[in-house]
């Protein structure tokens, strides 16, 4: 049986009072298997950072349960230092500015109690070798490292104590283009080495697609579509997924020629979500039904799931097929 490292069961998160607060995440049910990478895409306000904080145990769900390695993050002491680790966009934020990076990398090992003193030193050296920070670099303070080196150090720190789950929140966004590929390749290598389970969050769909086994598409706190990367890219069902895909620059000429789906207006505020389907106010194929009734996340023939009354109706070029 598949071992699930991360489980969200009926999870909602409301900031403010239960009745009138802002519902940033609603009815989330998803499991991530050991060794799997789940990519999360969505715009600002979609709830992807809240999802990350819940997985890390930094926040508790308003309803439902979040389990990491079978243990609820709500348990006393869980989620702190032990289970999930995070790689942030800004590598400096997880490194103590006045400590040598090797000291910062050893810190989670001390907290985890999986290693004795000699084991901690050995483990820190091993993981720093893995991320290719040599003897000289690992004894520097973060301010003496370049951006790419700092991000390698924060990846070493995140992976040091062999956490069951690693959350990468825009982990390469702040890096220079020529350094990004190094860090992505490094993440792939250590993921393989340790069979790590990753939540890979980014606004850049190309990077998420490259890194992830499955992709979850969030909009205004709701899952719009979830499925394996290959089939989601080849055969997207939800108009929002198609819109996101059509907005990705293709590294070829011809924006002016390319057929793309163009949405009017701005995303509604999460504080004031529309009735019915959250995407209905901008969806090119929305019907009356969509504005009245919120579609449930339902399985599709290709094995993915989408929350749409009319999946696969919108063509990839933005033209509308027949509404069944």
């Amino acid at each position, binding site marked *: 049986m598949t071992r699930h490292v991360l489980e969200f069961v009926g999870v909602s998160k409301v900031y403010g009072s239960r009745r009138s607060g802002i519902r940033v995440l609603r009815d989330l049910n998803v499991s991530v298997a050991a060794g799997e990478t789940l990519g999360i895409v969505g715009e600002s306000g979609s709830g992807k950072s809240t999802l990350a904080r819940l997985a890390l145990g930094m926040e508790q769900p308003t309803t439902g349960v979040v389990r990491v390695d079978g243990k609820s993050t709500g348990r006393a002491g869980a989620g702190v230092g032990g289970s999930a680790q995070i790689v942030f966009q800004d590598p400096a934020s997880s490194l103590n500015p006045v400590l040598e990076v090797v000291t910062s990398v050893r810190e989670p090992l001390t907290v985890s109690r999986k290693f004795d003193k000699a084991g901690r030193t050995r483990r820190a050296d091993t993981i720093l070798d893995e991320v290719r920070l040599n003897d000289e670099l690992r004894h520097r303070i973060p301010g003496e490292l370049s951006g790419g080196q700092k991000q390698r150090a924060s990846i070493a720190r995140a992976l040091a104590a062999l956490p069951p789950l690693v959350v990468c929140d825009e982990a390469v966004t702040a890096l220079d283009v020529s350094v990004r590929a190094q860090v992505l390749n490094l993440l792939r290598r250590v993921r393989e080495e340790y069979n790590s389970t990753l939540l890979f969050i980014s606004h850049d769909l190309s990077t998420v697609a490259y890194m992830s086994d499955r992709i979850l598409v969030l909009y205004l706190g709701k899952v719009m579509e979830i499925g394996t990367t290959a089939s989601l890219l080849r055969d997207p069902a939800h108009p929002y997924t198609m819109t996101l895909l059509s907005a990705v620059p293709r590294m070829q000429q011809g*924006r002016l020629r390319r057929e793309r789906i*163009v949405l009017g207006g701005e995303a509604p505020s999460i504080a004031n979500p529309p009735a019915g389907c959250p995407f209905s106010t901008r969806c090119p194929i929305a019907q009356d039904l969509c504005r009245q009734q919120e579609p449930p996340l339902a399985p599709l023939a290709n094995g993915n799931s989408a929350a749409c009354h009319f999946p696969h109706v919108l063509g990839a070029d933005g033209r509308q097929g027949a509404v069944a």
Partner: protein
Amino acid sequence: MKFRRGERVVHAVRDVSLTARAGDRIAIIGESGSGKTMTTLAMLGLLPAGAEVSGSFSLGGERYDPLDKAAVDRVVRRRMAAVFQDSLSGLNPIKRVGTQLEEVLLLRGHDASTASTKVVEALRRVGISDPQMRARSYPHQLSGGMRQRVMIAMALLASPQLLIADEPTTALDALVQAQVIDLVLELQREIGLALLLITHDIALAADVCEDAIVMYAGYVLEQTSMAALLERPAHPYSAALLGSMPRLDSPRDVPLQAISGEAPSAYSTPDGCPFAPRCDHARDICGTAMPPLRPVEGGALTRCVRIDEIRHELAGPERLSA
């Protein structure tokens, strides 16, 4: 273009030449420290204090010195406009958006009585709904995408011949980015102005522009048409950048073509090609002197001294996916 920092001299940009004609869409592609932003700040006459510039600038046939404030006011302000990444820094936080847009017109000698009508019209033109109401908003009351539209409206009110867009969409969500780029392109074609897109994102540059300038450590390494860059890059750095970006159709079981090492510090002044320490094709000759930009087959200009020997090994994505 250089700066003095105490004893040390920073060469921010070296020997850049570019010409933009009406209707041109040119991308300057580079990472941080490549000199792409300094090049545009120089054109705009917005150089930081202490900068030294040599060479000549002209706009609409009129030459100007980017360090001479009066000349910049006379030549640049009337013909060039810019949209930057951080829209908040371009707007005064304690003035209403409409007032700031009106100032652009008043500075150009427009009649105050018609200014507010023109501002509302410009806001409508860039796709802002309820422009009368939005004109009374303060910058913080608008979303990032809307602020960037306001910046574009401001640029349009200046009726420029050249629009500089410096990472205009980097801070925006994917869909808002697409909307803003569409808007810039639509207006560019409608008004026939020249567009200079400054970006680190080679995919976006490819999508939008017809010509490309690839910069690294202050140098132009390759200057070419976008079609040629994608089909047959003429510098190993351009080829490496193209190969290092994940694409939607990148095979997921193959590592990206990473570029080893990091970009050189602005203080370093290598004798040879600044990319040589990271270049898979570098030989001893690359460390001796920086070669001038020279034309190669297909019309591209390149600074790679070994290009004739290695070009067949460089492939752009158009060929990779073909």
